């Protein structure tokens, strides 16, 4: 939150830059879910996975991409650290800085 204390009055005031400061320009939206469970649904820096061609990483600004995933461990680098999700199969769709991973399909 971009809220500061006014030096003259002592009141808490919003400096109007709250939206700007909360959005990191290097982050993208990532959602990893199966029909019955959501595993990850937050902003993150990158996601790594494996398909038939081999391991790959997706970062912000990636071209539109649709791939079938091989059994692997998804690695998501988020603000709070890394998150690993072991998968047996899935489909990944990347579009306009939004990554959707459909699991168990």
């Amino acid at each position, binding site marked *: 939150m971009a809220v500061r204390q006014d030096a003259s009055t002592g009141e808490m005031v919003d400096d109007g830059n709250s939206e700007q400061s909360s959005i990191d320009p290097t982050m993208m939206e990532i959602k990893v*879910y*199966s*029909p*019955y*469970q959501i595993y990850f649904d937050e902003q993150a820096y990158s996601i790594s996975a494996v*398909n*038939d*061609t081999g391991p790959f990483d997706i970062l912000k600004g990636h*071209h*539109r*991409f*649709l*791939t*079938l995933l091989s059994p692997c461990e998804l690695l998501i680098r988020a603000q709070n650290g890394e998150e690993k999700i072991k998968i047996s199969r899935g*489909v990944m*769709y990347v579009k306009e800085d939004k990554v*959707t991973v*459909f699991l*168990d*399909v």
Partner: protein
Amino acid sequence: MRRPNEIERDEKSIGTLVELTGVFEGIASMRIAQIKNQVLQATAFFNDLWEIYSQLRVDNLFRFGRSQDSSKVLNKDLYILITAEGGFSGDIDQKLIRVMQQTYDKDKHDIIVIGHHGAMQLVQQGISFKKYFKLPTRDKNINVSPIIQYVQQYQKTTVFYQEYISLMVQDVKRIELSAAVQQQGKESEENEKKEIITAENTIFEPSVYGVIDHLERSMLQIAMSQLILDSKLAQYASRFRAMTASHERAEETKAEYHLEYNRAKRAIKDQRLKEIINGLRKAKVAA
């Protein structure tokens, strides 16, 4: 008239039945709430997947994920019957088989039955089936791949299942599987502006057709799982209804036993009182 201690024993045993039916009623009601929630979640997932698939389609044909090769498809229709595993589900399975028999022709149709109760019913009626699958006990991550492998071998698949309408109303429905997939997709498509995904604007791995086939198989699996869940929902509701009726009957019987017990006890007391009065009278006369 029966002795009070005999009636008391019966009342106690019917009391156990009241408690048991109450517990079963509670379990069924809890399962209904859980499955309804899962169906909603799976529908949202399906809709997202359908959105991508519909943007990829070059025509309206649903190919059951068997790629562009349709040469190995059997010239027969497949009937899939989703029934209960046990016998605690009321008469809905018999109703389902009756509906199936209206159109069944053994030369034109092969049957796959899911659920032991339905398989037993078919055997009793002398109807042969190609394969029997156990109804999945769990409600999440149902593995329907072996069923889908059969589905892909046939030109058309019709599923007979139990539909949950409300807690008190369940019905038998038949639906063509590809129609079930497309029906679910249409519901998600309404009021949406379409965008086309092509090899020109998207990178595909392994290939466009590879992805389409995979998505079709996936959506078939989700649709099939949804039908199984819908059937389970209806079965739990049917069980809930049966348990509610049994619970009410058991409570009524318990109340009747209690009344009978009180009457029997009262009758014994009256009898003793009568004997005492008679004894007193006789003693008075003798005096």
